[in-house]
């Protein structure tokens, strides 16, 4: 049996997939559908706030339910989120020393409302994370 061509295909495929595999995995599964935009700035490895249809998570750890976060409508920030971010900032500062700019990436489902978005931004701002990036799926400039 001549398997040389099959081996060639496999070898090329493996290298292609290894090179293409990104460091940042798409988290959240079916519950998280990121919005789309025509942007080409690649995702950087930063602290990630994940907001899906029912909960807010930081670095993969669930912090608070969406409903709980929206319930206290008179508060402008989400208290557990601020506390978690402050704690993470402290811990990072203890390891790496103080830094001026603390970037954070928000991966949010496309159905969340601005009122929630505003609270998350206010919370990040209060915890002194000044650089917020919104993760989106790239449509590329050549599509439609």
């Amino acid at each position, binding site marked *: 049996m001549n398997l040389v061509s099959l081996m060639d295909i496999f070898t090329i495929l493996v290298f292609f997939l290894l090179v293409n595999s990104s460091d940042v995995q798409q988290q959240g599964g079916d519950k998280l559908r990121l919005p789309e935009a025509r942007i080409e700035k690649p995702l950087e490895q930063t602290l990630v706030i994940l907001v899906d249809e029912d909960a807010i998570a930081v670095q993969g750890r669930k912090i608070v339910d969406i409903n709980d976060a929206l319930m206290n409508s008179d508060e402008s920030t989400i208290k557990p989120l601020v506390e978690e971010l402050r704690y993470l900032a402290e811990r990072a500062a203890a390891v790496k020393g103080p830094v001026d700019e603390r970037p954070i990436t928000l991966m949010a489902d496309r159905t969340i409302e601005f009122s929630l978005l*505003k609270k998350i931004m206010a919370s990040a701002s209060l915890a002194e994370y000044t650089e917020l990036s919104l993760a989106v799926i790239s449509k590329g400039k050549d599509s439609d």
Partner: protein
Amino acid sequence: MRRGRRQGLSTEPPEINITAFLNLMVVLIPFLLMSAAFNQLTILELYLPAPGFSQTENPEDDKKTLELQVILRENSLTVSDKNSGPIKAYPLTSTGEYDIENFQKRLTTIKRKNPEMTRITLLSEPQITYDKIVQIMDSSRALLVKDSGGNYFAELFPDIAVGEAPDQDE
């Protein structure tokens, strides 16, 4: 003829046993395929005001300069200047979407008049979905120019700040 072929066969190197390698490939490929990210994730950068940042800046400096705002409402999209008031409102199109095309045309005109300006403030009503906000951000950030030599982006206003929309009647 026959003799020649037989000789050729006997000089051919023996086939290597590649079963182990093949097994490895068969396992590796589905694994990598599963973990491969097929949609490229990218980021939109925002700058948040530091806590304690006040909205009221020095009024004398702001008189002449244009401070561009986009007000995003359930039923309209308004381009406005913070100091002199609304410039143009775009109602929804017949398909119920924001009129991005005309909105971008207006921004392009403004950009042409003020080429050094990069800042824009997006003001949104509380019930607007994140998807729409990102869509508007994307369209106010850069204009996609379709050209025969390939598509490229023309920069509009990439420094986007976000805020809450004022009430309708104001």
